[in-house]
């Protein structure tokens, strides 16, 4: 029963509210002319400072790089926007990969040159690990005399 009473009261309240609103609307329509004029002037003033609408720029199908940049600046959505921010990233990634590849190749070539020089030399590579041979290399006169001897043999 209480629930029913409450429902009834709410319904009555709604009816009362709507009836009041209807009366108030009538009252609002019968404002003095001076007030209406001032409200009209206020409305015109408000419309004069209205926030400008955003103008959507139609994008060309093939805009090129300049078009991409322009679209980026315009901040609009679309395929060219995606391309606009993806392209520099792709270029950067491929550039980094290329630089890394070039550095690897350069290092491999350097190592290959050293290996080739060692293998093509008369002295076996193991000799460079021998301390006696290193001491022999440091003594310049011995090596010079050796060269002189080989030169004399070749001249004969």
């Amino acid at each position, binding site marked *: 029963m209480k629930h029913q009473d409450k429902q009834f009261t709410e319904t009555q309240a709604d009816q009362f*509210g709507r009836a009041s*609103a209807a009366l108030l609307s*009538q009252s609002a329509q*019968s404002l003095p002319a001076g007030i209406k004029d001032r409200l009209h002037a206020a409305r015109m003033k*408000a419309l004069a400072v209205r*926030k400008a609408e955003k103008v959507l720029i139609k994008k060309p199908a093939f805009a090129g790089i300049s078009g991409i940049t322009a679209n980026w600046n315009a901040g609009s959505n679309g395929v060219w926007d995606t391309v606009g921010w993806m392209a520099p990233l792709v270029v950067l990634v491929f550039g980094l990969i290329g630089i890394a590849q070039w550095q690897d190749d350069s290092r491999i070539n350097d190592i290959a040159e050293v290996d080739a020089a060692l293998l093509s030399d008369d002295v076996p590579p193991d000799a460079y690990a021998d301390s006696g041979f290193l001491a022999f290399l440091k003594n310049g006169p011995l090596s010079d005399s050796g060269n002189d001897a080989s030169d004399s043999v070749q001249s004969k």
Partner: protein
Amino acid sequence: MASAQELSDFLSSVEKRAFKQAIYAVRDEDAALDIVQDAMIKLAEKYGDRPAAELPLVFTRILQNRIHDWFRRQKVRNAWVTLFSNMGKKTDENDDFDPLESLSAPDDSEIHQDGAQKLEQSQLLQALESEIAKLPVRQREAFLMRYWDELSITETAKAMSCSEGSVKTHCSRATQTLAKALKLKGITL
């Protein structure tokens, strides 16, 4: 996005109602006009690009904020006036003063109505507006938004920054108070 025409139509449809709501609150014609103008300018300037469907709620909220701002300024001003002057002792007169009595001037569009009927309706409106003006602020806001602005309970709660339960309570109390006050004057809606 609301076009200029839609915004103009919307403002045209709400300006009179907004003025009445403002005057119920501040009881000063010039202040009410200033409040409505400020609210319309703020709406057009800041929210003019919103969809037309969002405008009623946004405008109601701006209007209520403007009214609250006016009361805050008045409070500060009154504090200073009270501090520096001992001449303002006419508070009783101010309480009795009801500017609404000077508002409901007869309009030419109602000239076809019967004199007695017109007088009766005028008295009814005066009584209703007078009682609405006497309501506590929150009750009046909830009542006017809910029934006159035709906002839903959720929208009213959002505009008043309170819960939906509070809106229901405010509306219920407002309708009961108004119905009781009008009944005492022999008026039934």
